[in-house]
């Protein structure tokens, strides 16, 4: 029984007049609050862009803003260590996203389509990959590399270990994204193709693949962004190598050079453009969005 019924019984004696259709004041307050919150969420982004024009004397950012110089934009490449870290970030993110997309798409495809023994286990590992705190995963990966070296493997903690780890956490997100697309798919289209004498492979490449492509592209972009932005896991498995976020973190102790703001602005613009492009192809999501989805999935699978 719903609570609503109970409500009616208690209120039956003094019936209020029928509701009037109007927009109450409270809604405007909430709307204004929402806009305010969005500005609050975006405020560091505005500041990052603004401080890229900070006219400071030294080469490290200070909290006080002095208007304005294009100096840092002109000398965008003036900090060699920063350039190096950006290069590493790209060198990790591109192959990590490609490999994770390939492996994750296969998993997502099978999970979204077939019931098979071990399905629960794979779902569980994907949930684990998404829900485990990054610090735990980072320390676990480092423990594994150290252990492997203890028993005679010769792994250099650096680029290889960063790449290995990034592929790992990206696979789970790609798989979730693709799985969503596959299970939302109308199977009758593929059946129709087969009825029209397409072989299973033809049906797959001509019908299924184009239909799930937006999911695959979204998965790739997600993997790319996750890899580019990852700090905690990279911090554990990077050794002497630095990616963009870990280098910036290291630089905060002495002060961040303004070129970081400039590069941040460049990456931000590129990200917005990619999102706009992806809007045309399909959908865009984020690491935490996928986390939310994963938790919701587990909950749903428990209930269904």
């Amino acid at each position, binding site marked *: 029984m*719903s609570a609503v019924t109970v409500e009616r019984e208690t209120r039956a004696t003094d019936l209020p007049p029928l509701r009037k259709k109007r927009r109450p004041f409270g809604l405007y307050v909430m709307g204004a609050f929402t806009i305010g919150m969005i500005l609050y969420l975006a405020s560091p982004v505005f500041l990052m862009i603004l401080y890229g024009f900070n006219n400071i004397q030294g080469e490290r950012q200070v909290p006080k803003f002095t208007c304005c110089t294009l100096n840092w934009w002109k000398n965008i490449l003036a900090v060699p260590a920063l350039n190096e870290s950006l290069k590493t970030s790209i060198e990790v993110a591109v192959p990590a996203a490609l490999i994770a997309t390939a492996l994750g798409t296969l998993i997502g495809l099978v999970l979204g389509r077939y019931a098979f023994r071990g399905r629960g286990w794979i779902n569980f590992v994907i949930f684990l990959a998404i829900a485990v705190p990054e610090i735990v995963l980072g320390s676990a*990966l480092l423990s594994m590399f150290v252990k492997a070296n203890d028993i005679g493997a010769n792994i250099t903690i650096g680029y290889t270990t960063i790449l290995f780890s990034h592929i790992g956490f990206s696979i789970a997100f790609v798989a979730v994204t693709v799985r969503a697309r596959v299970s939302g798919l109308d199977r009758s289209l593929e059946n129709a193709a087969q009825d029209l004498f397409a072989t299973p492979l033809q049906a797959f490449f001509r019908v299924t693949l184009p239909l799930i492509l937006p999911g695959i592209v979204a998965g790739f972009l997600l993997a790319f962004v996750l890899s580019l932005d990852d700090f905690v896991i990279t911090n554990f498995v990077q050794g002497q190598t630095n990616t963009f976020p870990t280098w910036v973190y290291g630089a905060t102790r002495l002060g961040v050079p303004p070129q970081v703001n400039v590069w941040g602005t460049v990456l931000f613009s590129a990200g917005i453009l990619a999102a706009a492009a992806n809007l045309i192809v399909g959908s865009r999501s984020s690491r935490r969005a996928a986390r939310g989805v994963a938790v919701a999935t587990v909950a749903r699978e428990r209930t269904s």
Partner: protein
Amino acid sequence: MSSAEERTGTAVVETVETLGEPPKRADQVLAKRQRRVAYGLLAPGSIYLALAFVVPLIIVVITSLQSGGLLSGGYHFTWEFSNYTDAFSQYKAFYAKSLVYSGIATILCIALAYPMMYWIAFYAGRWKSTLFFLILIPFFVSFVIRTVQWKFILADDGLLLGPLKNIGVLPESFHVLATPTAVIAGITYNFLPFTALPLYVALERIDKRLVEAAKDLYASKFQAFRRVVLPLSFPGIFAAIILTFVPATGDYVNSSVLGSAKTTMIGQIIQTKFLTEFAYPEAAALSVILMIGMLILALIYARLLGTEDAALAAGTAG
């Protein structure tokens, strides 16, 4: 609403809608050959996931039970459970502090995100997708950079406190940076979108007609909210709490950038033990304790929702 527009921000919602559905019965009967193909397709990714998640998590547990010293012949596996008792008794203050900080931040996140997502889900109309997308804007900038920007905002002569001090609203001695307030504010800021997403997913899914029905049955606006919307959004609130609280407890970027030695959280301890002291067994034990805490929360969540969801569905149908 155009389908393209609909798709942008609400991909998450779509994903959730379709995600949990098990394959249709007819598909479950697989030919032997098909099954072989399915396992073949799964194999590479699954093996990788095993190597990148299952194996490391097992090894960190093994590492946490080692004893020995880095300089005295390395670490050896000896079922050294004292690592756990030592780590816990020595650092329980840091666990407690982390739980308090992330607990307060989680409450703040829910309090801030809920009205916002409620308004977007129920009243934003055709602006829904756009507003939802705007909430994701911060994700396009590395969170390390965003945290550094907060350091500038909260600095004594920064954009916020500087002017306030100049006009005399605040005394010169007023600080925010390096206090627990700054750390909690930083965590709240950084995790707010992660609170918002599951809340949005839950609120979006609520059938607006149920609210209408409640009002037709003479529920006041508040009663309709408290008796219909709020209970139906509980799964989202639980998800939001887990997704905010768990990672926030292990966070160490906010406390190291915005805090001081007094605000050290357990994540910083784990990081230092691992990366500068190379005290692997101790660090691994600290990390495993955190992992177990998170697993317990996740299990409670799954249990609660398993029964809760069904009860709610039954309740609204009645």
